[in-house]
């Protein structure tokens, strides 16, 4: 049982995992109680598990714990809270861009990474950025509107 130190949502935390190959997703969800990232496929195909590591959107379901090192991990919870949502979370609320919401973690984390890189993306850029994030409810139109709203375009 090896202890690792992780930087998650701005704090250094200690986690224990018997297997350095444990995907980051399970460490976040089961050890740290962070439920923003979700298990969708375990294959990096759907995006439900997306977190930021050093500002980049990555699929935590296929990211081994051992590869994280001192990377700064941010989850949906780290973006903002109910009381003080991040502008992109606020935009998702204002556009009512949720149906079941299981995929929404990935939509928000992926879009937040995009807006950091490209604060005023085109609609085409937004759709291209989200091309590997799957939504089954068909909330896509609202999600795009929310990202545009957050970007002020």
């Amino acid at each position, binding site marked *: 049982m090896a202890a690792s130190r992780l930087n998650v949502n701005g704090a250094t935390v200690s986690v224990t995992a018997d297997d350095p190959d444990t995907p980051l997703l*399970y460490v976040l969800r089961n050890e740290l109680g962070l439920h923003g990232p979700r*298990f969708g*496929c375990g294959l990096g195909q759907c995006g439900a598990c997306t977190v930021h590591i050093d500002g980049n959107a990555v699929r935590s379901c296929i990211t081994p714990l051992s590869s994280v090192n001192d990377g700064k991990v941010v989850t949906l919870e780290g973006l903002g809270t109910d009381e003080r949502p991040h502008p992109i979370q606020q935009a998702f609320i204002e556009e009512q861009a949720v149906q*079941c919401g*299981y995929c*929404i973690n990935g939509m928000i984390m992926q879009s937040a990474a995009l807006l950091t890189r490209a604060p005023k993306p085109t609609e085409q850029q937004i759709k291209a950025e989200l*091309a590997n994030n799957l939504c089954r409810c068909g909330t896509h139109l609202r999600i795009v509107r929310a990202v545009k709203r957050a970007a002020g375009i």
Partner: protein
Amino acid sequence: MNEMINRRSLLQATGALIVTFSLMPDAGGAQPASLAKTVSPDRVDGFLAIDIDGAVLVYSGKVDLGTGVRTALTQIVAEELDVPMSQVTVIQGDTALTPDQGTTFGSLSIQNGGMQLRRAAATARRALLAKAAAELRRDASLLAIRNGVVVSKNELDGRPKLPLGALVGGTSLALPLDNDAPLKAPADYTIVGKPMPRLDIPDKVTGRFTYMQDFKLPGMLHGRVIRPSGIGATLVSYDETSINHIPGIVKVVHINNFLGVVAETEWSAIKAAQQLSVTWSKWEGLPDEAKLWQHVRGTKVVRDDVTSNIGDAAALRAATRKLSATYDFAIHTHGSIGPSCAVASFVGGKLTCWTASQGVHDLRKQLAAMLAVENDDVRCIYVDGAGCYGRNGHEDAAADAALMARAVGGPVRVQWMRADEHGWDPKGPPTLVDLRAGLDQDGNVIAWESELFIPDGIATFVDLVGADLAGLNSLGKLSPGGVLNDLAIPYGIENVKTTAHRLESTPLKPAWIRSPGRLQNTFANEAFFDEIAAQTGADPLELRLKHLDDPRGQELLERLADVSNWRDRPKPDRSADVVIGRGLAYVKYELVRTYVGAVVEVQVNRKTGEIAVVRFHVVHDCGQIINPDGLRNQIEGNIVQTVSRALKEEVTFDRSMVTSLDWASYPILTFPEIPDVVIELIDRPDQVPWGGGEPSAAIVPAAISNAVFEATGARLRSVPFTPAKVKAAIGAT
């Protein structure tokens, strides 16, 4: 008012029970019956409780499957009771607390479930005003409830105000539900009909929402299933030593062909399920996928259901001109983004099970049968999961969790892996429809005949996978859903006969997926109607109007023509490689409720066969609208999801098993491919509300097929409309 007996202790106990089970669940099994509140749908206290602070608890057997119906039900009760929405909490789907209002399917949550709640609230409002009248020594007719407070109607100032909490705090609303209790006039509505923001969204976008997949019990273990290599394969052997190196393995659970592994951590359970050395027998009982439609046509018919029979079927044979065509619709999976999940605790012969089931009351019966215990020994509790769009794997995951919890004696959480979900959820069955029409010498449609080939059965118990593998009874029957609906047509034609041939079996276990049967039948009917229009040189809209004797349907189609600019649409330019076409489709859901019409614009690449769906115009009339933004959200979702199904989706299989086990082999629509959706809602506040959950899905495939025809002259009669099929159809023109 003497029926309002004082039951403070029970109400408090009930409240405590709710807190216990939603926040810090008791792993000790089902609650003793003595604590149970009534779950009778004939009683107000089946549905409603008002606590001492005036908070209103709504006990809803209908559950929010991600559609936002929790918010709509809150609006309905808040409106009818005249309390603020913030004072209302909906408790969903709990066999110990909520009435059995039927499974949450078929676009009935508001139409049926919501109206039961509305009548319960109206009954309560009348009783509350009568009680207030007695306490205030005033005539009840002079009193009203405003914002949760009983006030005098005409002299609001200086008069005593009585909050509902003070009025009935510590009592139970132990009243029979009166279906004739006077309802509020829609003209007085301040909450219903308004686009109230969804109550669950702030928590869902900040990671605070508790999905089923997040639900935990103290001491909970993690289970994973190991399914056979073939659907009917049997377990030959397994070697437990093959997972000895994985820490924290608690037990390999083996019951006949059911195999699961329970571990202390989720990752250990996953690794163990992947690495356990198992030998299954060879089983190749599935038909040849390449000959699926021959298989369907050759399957034994156990019964014919004639769903409409008007005039004389022989008229078809006498017709001057005849048309015929066959439409088929592939096998689909639900494709929930979050694989099914359940937590079960089996203690002292009693099971408590949490899962995102559409129907906890039915699930209870199935789990009780499987475990050979009484229904009263099983409690099933709904927790929101990922959208399911029908009967996905949540009930099966519950059975898996129950079997593993019983085997280890502690609470077990089972979440399916992606391949479990894609491979083992019950499927929308392959559907085949033969259609024939007859025209007279003037080109008038005089006869319509259709034959549907569809598995037997209705929407009832779907066999639980785990029970089936374990050789245990779970009451399962062939259960494809209400698949006969909308085989009969909404158009006035002199001679009509529509028949469903009910098949003895279908290759993969079936169940309902959004708009079951209605989707496939509407595809066939509305595309074939377009074929008739093309044959007779009639405009598809005008021909529909000509055969429609339904003012509401006519109004809807006229509005659709206006908003989509149908009558002035440009002619397709077939000299280009990429051709633009428009198509129209219409449905009156089940011929008795929600009306939907749509016009779609598509771009067809004649060289590659690719279809780009550009824009849907949808006009929707479901009567009284509870929450227009929620309805728009649902319609947008139906359109986008069904474009995905129509263009892309098809479950593949070999002779042993489903082979489309991930998102690469079962692709769905992605962001760059989504159409614009423009929606016109027809609100009829004075009419009853009908369902909005799924009807707008039904028109999508036909509208696209018809648009592709307008663009290219090629008729697509087989879902999905893959580029290969489009190219072949264009080549055949």
